[in-house]
């Protein structure tokens, strides 16, 4: 009965009811990331505004509950934030995912994303959780605002 730590209710909720899903215009950059080992895919668009604001993050993709829920959680976290704020969260999330279950993650920084802590114990699934987040980081880099 190990799975309970991974399939948190919150993750299943986001998976069943994804927030902000669907590709929207306008956008500054669009990226397409694939997890080749499992076939999970995500297309992500980012629209940045003045003062480093994130105006919209829209996405579409397919994959497992972890990869899809991670995109949904990411969407919520970016709403109304600045690029700098969100990149700090991405950094903490990456650290958590690569911790192999050794750290709990800073809930202050991560918000809902802390629910993914259990995933970090499964090396094969870490990439699923990171897919959307890495795509987001990439898209932000390409939006040269």
């Amino acid at each position, binding site marked *: 009965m190990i799975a309970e730590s*991974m*399939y948190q209710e919150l993750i299943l909720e986001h998976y069943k009811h994804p927030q902000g899903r669907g590709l929207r215009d306008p956008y500054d950059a669009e990226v397409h990331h694939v997890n080749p080992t*499992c*076939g999970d895919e995500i297309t992500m668009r980012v629209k940045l505004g003045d003062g480093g604001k994130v105006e919209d993050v829209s996405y579409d993709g397919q994959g497992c509950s972890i990869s899809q829920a991670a995109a949904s959680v990411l969407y919520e976290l970016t709403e109304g934030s600045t690029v700098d704020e969100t990149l700090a969260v991405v950094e903490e999330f990456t650290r958590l995912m690569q911790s192999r279950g050794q750290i709990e993650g800073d809930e202050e920084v991560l918000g809902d994303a802390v629910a993914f802590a259990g995933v970090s114990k499964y090396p094969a*699934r870490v990439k699923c959780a990171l897919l959307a987040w890495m795509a987001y980081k990439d898209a932000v880099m390409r939006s040269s605002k």
Partner: protein
Amino acid sequence: MTTGFDAERIRKDFPVLSRELPGGRPLVYLDSANSAQKPTRVVEAMREHMAMHYSNVGRAMHALGAESTEAYEAARDKIAAFVGAPSREEIVFTKNASEALNLVAYSFGNRTNDDPRFRMGPGDEIVISEMEHHSNIVPWQMLAQRTGATLRWFGVTDEGRLDLGNLEELVNERTKIVSIVHQSNVLGTVNPVERVLARVRQVGALMMLDASQSVPHQAVDVAALGVDFLAFTGHKVVGPSGVGVLWGRGELLDAMPPFLGGGEMIEAVWMDRSTYAPAPHKFEAGTPPIVEAVGLGAAVDYLSEIGLDAVARHERELTAYALEALADVPGLKVVGPRDLDMRGGTVSFTLEGIHPHDVGQILDDEFGVAVRVGHHCARPLHLRFGIPATTRASFYLYTVPAEIDALVRGLHHVRKVFA
């Protein structure tokens, strides 16, 4: 259900099958198409050889060298007998099936070789199929890219069978080689070698079989099959990792250029040129997988004693049982033949609305059921069916019906989690 085959006794030969996984889960190993477990006999043969009889082969003339060489070459004899090779010299040890497939692919279009059968360039064609494992796709893609030849492929029908509708057009005078899988690692489909081969012979091309999934599960006789090359891999026939086998017709092995250069594959070396040893040594550069070949020899001994026909019958009964039991899981769709005709004990499926990764994870975490999820190194086949991934359960001689029951129970639970 009883299979009339003492799988329970056989399970005792595989220590891992009585292991408890962390969290007190039992192990339900349904991933043998990925890699098989190893019987004690294989493990012990390797341990004993490494601890007490090991030395390099071929080149050493002392007592240990003789013991090691004899054990290594005896393994070649065993493999030759196991697959019905007309000559032991036709058995080449590689590191896995992938190397065997690459070895043959690299034999084409080598400008140092002028045998017309192995010429490859613009206008020449290579034929594979849409149900191939990446290891029987990528080597040919790379060959086509290096030489300018054209890669073509058989399609797959909705039922998961090789589509031979355009056989005559696809395999034609331009075709140099046809390389297809004997048994699909996803669909379980066993392909009609004879029909394809008849056409290959008409046009004077060569034919290779990727037998990675057939040699473990049915009696394979290369002479009876009549193809030109056949590859399989040690770790799927209850043998160790690190060893695979290429069988090739002697006259073709003779006509091929060497692949890897180095010690043991030469006849004589000068600084500026070399002459090569006859096959199989021509293709075994460097120190071979000595201990692994010894393990593989023990593995085929083990399988031969049980009998591949008995193994095949057992798996057939398991497959019938599984197909029926899985049909009861709502939303489950088998990808591949749903009847037992020309199919092996590998069953891939989708579960509506639930990603295979989630299926596999929950099966493993909560029930200790080990299945494989993903595209199983056959991404084009999944593209063909418009799905990114499947869940695959695969059976072997040590599989018992209770394990299929555990799988089905697990699947019902998975559906509940994602309801």
